[in-house]
Structures are given as structure tokens and as C-alpha cells.
């Protein structure tokens, strides 16, 4: 009886832990020349018909990797190299339970990096 109550409490705790650590935040620059548009999704053939993203039609790029931070890494930023305009328009950071767990388990040495971004449209 007592064991099943503990199990329930544990389940609730895990549920809250998993869901509270899974979220995403999207930020965008409100002014400026606007986002780079995606000529591939403009064709629609490669595009998911059910895609309801408010930023549909913009050229999204992704970084989904695990970075290893060494004592010599210092606080160097992760370099984004493929924005021809040299500027970011939108960036979405995603936090996952697995990422949080990895960070804790490796004492911050390994960090899950899941970022989606849109560059500013190159100006001519």
C-alpha cells in the first residue's frame, strides 16, 4: 500500500520533471530587413502539408548536436557560419529532458544543443 503511494508520487515527480524540462522559446528581431525566404518550401513539394508554423516560408536552419566543453574551451560561442547576411533574424532554443539529464550526468561537460534559426535576408 505504502509502496504504491511512493510509486505514484515518483511518477508525478518524473512527469513534472520531464515536462518542465521540455520547452522551446522562439525569439526574433522585430525590426530590420526581415527573414531569408526559403525557395525550396516555396515549391511546396518538399513541404509538409500540415506545417502550420507561423514562420512558414522562411529558411530555417538547424543545429542539433552535443557539444563538449573542456576546461580549455572557456566561454567560446558556437559559431553560426551560414548566414550570408551576417545576421540572425529568428532563433529558437529547445530544451529537452534528455539534454538536461546529459548536462547533469556529465557535470556540464556535455551539452545538448538544439537550435533552429533563420538568417536575415541578405541585402543588395
Amino acid at each position, binding site marked *: 500500500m505504502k509502496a504504491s503511494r511512493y510509486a505514484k508520487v515518483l511518477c508525478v515527480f518524473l512527469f513534472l520533471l520531464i515536462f518542465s524540462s521540455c520547452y522551446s522559446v522562439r525569439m526574433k528581431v522585430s525590426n530590420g530587413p526581415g527573414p531569408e525566404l526559403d525557395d525550396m518550401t516555396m*515549391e511546396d513539394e518538399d513541404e509538409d502539408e500540415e506545417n502550420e508554423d507561423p514562420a*512558414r516560408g522562411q529558411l530555417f536552419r538547424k543545429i542539433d548536436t552535443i557539444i563538449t566543453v573542456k576546461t580549455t574551451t572557456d566561454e567560446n560561442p558556437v559559431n553560426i557560419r551560414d548566414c550570408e547576411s551576417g545576421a540572425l533574424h529568428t532563433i529558437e532554443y529547445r530544451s529537452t529532458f534528455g539534454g538536461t539529464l546529459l548536462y547533469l550526468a556529465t557535470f556540464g561537460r556535455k551539452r545538448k544543443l538544439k537550435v533552429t534559426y533563420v538568417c536575415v535576408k541578405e541585402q543588395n
Partner: protein
Amino acid sequence: MATTKTTPRTRWNTLHKNGPFPLKFFLSTRLEKKSLMPDPIARYNDAAGEIQKQLLIAKNQHHGFRSIGARWSMSSIAHQKDRMHFTAHMNIKLSVHATDLHPNSPYQSDNIHVLQCGNTVKEVSFYLENRGKSLKASGASNGQTIAGCISTGVHGSGIDVGSVQDYVVGLNLILGPNPQDIVYLERHSKPALNNAFATKLNARVIRNDGLFNAALVGLGSFGFIHGVVIEAEDHYLLSRHVIKVKKADALALADSLDFKNSPIKIPSQTDAQGNPLRPYHYKVYINQYSNEDTVPVELIYKKPFDPNYKQTFGDPIPFMKEFVYRDLIYLLVKISEKFPRVIPKFVKALSQSILPKEDKVIVGKLSEIFWDAGYQGKAFACSFGIDHTHSSKALKVLTDLTKNEGPIPGIFAMRFIKQSDGLLSFAKFPFTCMVEIDGIIWEESKKIISLDQYAKRMIEVLQQHQIPFTIHWGKNADWGFPNLANHMFGADATKWMDYRSALLSQDMAALFSNEFLKKLNLHHYNAAADPTLIDNLLN
């Protein structure tokens, strides 16, 4: 060198998923890198050469060719079944010097700017703001390309300003693959640039009011619009007010546009005698399913620019924009398809979120007041241009139809625009009231009429009540309705085809046609069109 990527395809769709439409090839042209070709005019001319190359390929294969911008149009105006060309990477901007102006030019050189076709409204605004300038008007948002705007007649609600095409003073068109097919077109009564500037663009000059006004709203069929010359103005601020007023007063004001003698008054926006000022913009929102005797109206006033406006009035762009959860709307629409009677209740429930709130005054630049809209889901919009004196009558006819033969999951609004010189502009009345219904696309069922049927009935009821009208080229409508273009524009429709026939060769006129044009019977080529229609009337 500019390069074009050509991809075989089977279908294409609009941003708001009003298709899909069949397609053979999708083309996307990118400019040469600035580091390899730093001179913007050289890059512009290099791109013109690339476009001519693509036109030759299309011509040799007997294909149609059509440019698209940001694919915001909900009608099929942008669609071509053979070759569709994406222009958004073609975004050169050229400033003009006093020495570039025509001797008869009435314009200030610092207001004149040459914009390549793929520039979006947002990036043009940013470019102009860095020079202390602003566009005169835009649509309700900023994602459309400049060439797309003028081809479809994008308008805001500038009562005394007009639509986007009304501040265009020159057009650089590519009519075909030959050297003489690059043309710079402007009015002979109001020339902007001199011949030397046109020569820099390798363009022959035609100054001719009639031809220019025909090409201005060209429905994507007057050649490839490579560049658009606009007149900007000094930057200014807009002060936006939303108030709830008696519906009868709002409609009476729509019919008269006599702001001075209207009971609708914003206390801070009056003249020395206490009479209401004439606003820059007037918009009325109507929930056709509500019996309330008040409606929200939006009044926007133009003010001199003040660099400290954000400190005084706050940031016009919210930190986080509120929106209605899209899946909820889709769920409601799905339920509506089965039980249409609930639509009025749903619209009423959502109207709190859809309709603007009577909140604090927002002050900002044009680009901040008409800011990003983003993708709004599977949307429809039907928009009719009516002489403003018929505003309330037309609204009643259309809302009665919507209630009696619907209900339809959408909500009405009215905006007002000055008459345009564009021959096929839907802003053809001295002041045009755009009566529009926006909503979410629904599926036809036994209990709810289809969008096509609804669009057809809208035309029929306006005709039955003898209300002259036009239709927004980029919105949903029954474009195949018999004799529609002739009904809307009369002899001007024939005149437009004559100008087009005189300017384009027969094979290029066919290349720049599409199904949309054919549906409207505007594709006809008049081989006997008067060649003097395209005469240069001023050197």
C-alpha cells in the same frame, strides 16, 4: 554571374494553401555575389541578362513563365502551370542623385529609389528608414514583394494616399530575350528619371501615361517587372486609436467620409474649432452575427516624426504578440462543417481575440503599425471594391447573404482608399471602400456551402442590387464568373488588352499569360492594336 536553379516539380501552393496547383518547373534566381561584382548596377544588369536567358528557354519550349514573390495572393493570379520564377533573392536597391532626374521631373531626388522586384515591403521600409524616409502606404502587413504588390494592387487604408502602385513612378520591364526588350516605362506628364539613367540599365525609354497606367497593375502579365521606381517621403509617425462607436455612425461615416462633421471623434485629434481631423486611415470591423449596436473602428492619424516617440508613447511592437491558438480555430471550423449553426457563436466567442481592443494609443512608424503578420493558417479572404457612397448598402447585402445562405466562418471589415491611376486597379472609384471578409478555409458539406459557391453568390447579390464593384486581384473570388472583367472595368478591360498587345509580341504575350488571365478573358491578343499606344511621348 547571376544563376538560376531550375527544379522539375508537380505542384505548387500559395502561402495560405489555397491550392495546390500543377507545375512543371520551379525557378529561383540568385544574384552574383557582391564581392565578385561590387557595382550594384552591374549586378542588376547581370540579373537582367539571366532573366532574358530564362525567358528564351521558356519561349523555345513553348512554356508559360510567371514570376512570384512571397506567394501571399490567395487567388491563382501567381500560378503558371509551366514555369514559376521565385524573385525574392533579387533585391538590389539603388538611390538616385539629382543628376539622374529628368529635367521635367517634379520629384525630389532623395525621394526616388529604384527597387529590384524581389524586395519585400519590410526590407524596403528598413532601407528607407536608414535614410530618414518612409513608404507612403503599405498593406496591412509587410511580407509581400514590391513587384507582387503592384501587380495585384495591394492596398492599405490610406484614404488620401492610395495603394502601393500609386507611389510607383517608373517601371523597368523585361519583355523578352532580345536586347531591345528591356524597357524603362514612366509617365510623360510626370517623368522621374532621365535617359542617361535608363541607358545605365540598358533600357529603351517609353514615357507614356496611358501605357504606364495600364502596366501599373499588370496582373503579372505585362512582362517581367525587373525594377520598380518609387517615390518615398520624409519619415513620419502614425497614431493609432481604436474606439467602439455606434454602428449607424460608423456606417454613415463610411458612406460620407465626412470626418469633420461626424460624431465619431478622438478628443486629441481635433482642429482648433474642435472638429475631428481627417485621418490617414479608417477601418470598420463588423461581426455580422452580432446584434450589438456598437462596432470597433480604427482611426490612424499622420504625425510629424519625433525621434523620442518610443520614450513618449512606448514601443509600438509588443514584447510578445497575442494570437488565437490555431488548432482551436481548426477544431471549431471542423465542428462548424458538421453543425454550421454554431458558427455565429464561435465567431462571437473568438471576436474578443480577433477584433482590435480599445486599448492605449499606439504610435509608431508605418513599418511598425503595419508590422509582421506571419503565416495565419489556411485562410480565405474575399474583398470587393465599392464606391464608398455605397459602403453601407454593399455591407448589408453581403452580410445578409453570409447570414442567410451561410453561415460562413469569417468576419467583415471595411477599409477606404483613394482612386488609383492604374487602369485595372480595383481602387477605381473616387474613394473605394474595400468590403472584405476574412476567415478560415472550410470544407463543403451538405450543411454548409462551399467557398466557390459563396464567392459566386457574393457577385450575384451585388449585381442584383445594382452595386458597381471590383474585386481584389489577390483574394478569393469566382474568377470564372461570366463576363466578370468586363462587368467590373467595361471598356478599360479592352483598353488594357490593347496596350498589352501593342507592347508585347504575340508569343511573349502568350508566355506571360496564365489560367487566371484566361478565366477572366483578359488574355486576348489584339494583333491590330494601335502601335501609337506605346509611343514615347517625351524625350
